[in-house]
């Protein structure tokens, strides 16, 4: 299953946006244009649908309440609307969720409207008679309820399976010193080693072997990558052998890996997990130019049947000439709110790339705020 289109109203900095998504979509935009907010829509849907529970109430609460997720520009129509079209082979699904807020009392988020369509057929339309009889029901979506989502379990599972990884190497390297709180779904890779440990032995070995093959080419002197458990406390670790000054090479644990090595391992691991929808935040960070220039074909080859949404600032990543214009979407902030356009709708970009300019060079000027020149005067 894939998300082929999403229409958004009043979600964070998006007042009103509507965009088509491809199997692989790159999201570009200036700082604070809302790239992460855009990805957060899919994490939000995951949190609602996730089997660990909590549903709509928790998903909103974890984000700081309605006033944090609702667009500041929302005035006349203050509800949040997410309208997601998905395709599964030839079957078209549509999930519509409109959220409002209780006008008094606890000010909880409420389902204003929830609809599911499969191939044009209406499977759910809320509020229904039961909702009218018991308004408390509107605090929960049908998506989160095993009893009511039986006809559209497919999309509920698809949302629940969304994976987001933005591995922050320092959180992993200094895990013991930080002793931090582990966030649900581990968005920043703090528990990344546990994730590797939880994978079956054969599958783990196969994935690490593939990663090793990439690392041997990408990381100088790296020869081998292995998983091990600490014999004293059982904690999972990764270790790599480098062909250094020692005759038999030197083994190092993950806390000594470079940031780039760890990010690369995280990226290639999560791609091989083959989630239905994978969200990657700036995969180019800490990586050298040449690896970055191969990232987009790597993602395509490893994503399998899944869909991948990637935010990026990297001209090198977008330099791959096999990226279609409709695979890149641009977020443009304006006074009121951010708009989203696909690169095939930008005539200047289309002309420039047909004239031989790299896609990154053609589109990234759109992602540079024009006020930046005045920075110099600081």
């Amino acid at each position: 299953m894939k998300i082929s289109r999403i229409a958004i109203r009043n979600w964070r900095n998006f007042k009103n946006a509507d965009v088509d998504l491809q199997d692989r979509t790159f999201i570009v935009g200036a700082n604070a244009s809302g790239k992460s907010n855009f990805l957060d829509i899919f994490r939000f849907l995951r949190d609602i649908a996730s089997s660990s529970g909590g549903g709509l109430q928790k998903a909103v609460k974890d984000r700081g309440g309605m006033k944090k997720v609702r667009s500041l520009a929302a005035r006349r129509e203050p509800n949040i609307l997410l309208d997601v079209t998905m395709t599964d082979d030839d079957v078209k699904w549509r999930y519509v969720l409109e959220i409002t807020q209780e006008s008094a009392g606890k000010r909880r988020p409420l389902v204003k409207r929830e609809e599911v369509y499969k191939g044009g057929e209406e499977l759910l339309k809320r509020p229904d008679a039961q909702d009218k009889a018991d308004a408390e029901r509107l605090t929960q979506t049908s998506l989160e309820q095993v009893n009511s989502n039986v006809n559209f379990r497919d999309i509920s599972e698809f949302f629940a399976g969304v994976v987001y990884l933005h591995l922050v190497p320092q959180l992993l390297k200094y895990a013991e010193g930080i002793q931090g709180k582990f966030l649900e779904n581990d968005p920043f890779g703090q528990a990344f080693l546990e994730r590797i440990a939880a994978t079956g032995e054969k599958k783990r070995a196969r994935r690490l072997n593939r990663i090793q093959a990439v690392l041997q080419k990408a990381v100088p002197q790296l020869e081998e990558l292995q998983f091990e458990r600490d014999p004293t406390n059982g904690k999972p670790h990764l270790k790599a052998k480098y062909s250094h000054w020692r005759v038999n090479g030197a083994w190092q644990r993950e806390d000594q890996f470079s940031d780039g090595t760890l990010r690369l391992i995280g990226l290639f691991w999560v791609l091989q997990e083959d989630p239905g929808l994978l969200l990657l935040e700036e995969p180019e960070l800490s990586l050298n130019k040449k690896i970055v220039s191969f990232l987009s074909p790597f993602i395509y080859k490893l994503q399998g049947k899944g869909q991948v949404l990637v935010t990026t600032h990297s001209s090198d990543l977008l330099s791959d000439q096999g990226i279609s214009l409709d695979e890149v979407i641009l977020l443009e902030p304006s006074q009121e709110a951010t708009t989203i356009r696909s690169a095939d709708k930008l005539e200047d970009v289309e002309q420039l790339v047909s004239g031989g300019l790299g896609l990154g060079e053609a589109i990234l000027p759109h992602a540079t705020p024009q006020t930046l020149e005045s920075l110099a005067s600081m």
Partner: protein
Amino acid sequence: MVKKIAVVAEDLLTQAVLHKCISEVLPAYIVARTEVKGGRGNVQRELGAYAALAQVMPVLICVDLDGDDCAPTLLSGWGRLPPQAGLLLRVAVREIEAWVLADQKRVASFIGAAPNEVPKRPDELFDPKRSLLELARAHAGSELKADLVPRNYDASYPRIGRAYNLRLCAFIASKWRPHVARKKSASLERAMVALEKLA
């Protein structure tokens, strides 16, 4: 003693081809630095810097001829070139894919076509990339075809598929033979001769 050489390529595929040629003809050399310039214009602009570099190590530069008449016309348009012995400026006629196609047998087995389906005089092709893609479209298995050929074949952009560079660079590194290809491509032959002089 290990000798050093620098590589400047117009794109990733060109870079892979140059590395393979060097490893075959100049086993005593290591590539000390290598860069992809993303277009001919960038190479032209930085030529002065490469000439300076060529005083300490040879610099192999390769660009595509594309739509220009011939290499001398193209280069004469670049103004007076720095007269530097170690500066090897080569032009692939008309595109690097012509050099790739010139190893007919290996290209045929890579794509899954019969060797006689592969163009015999690649330097005469007007659009070698298109010829390579045509070959893949007609003969490649579904996975390779999906990797090499863009989804919308007739669109002006993108001209290549989503894993074109990845698959072709891997092919160049593992299978492609410069000593065979040079016999079918005069522009590659000239480049190889220039490299051999460094040995």
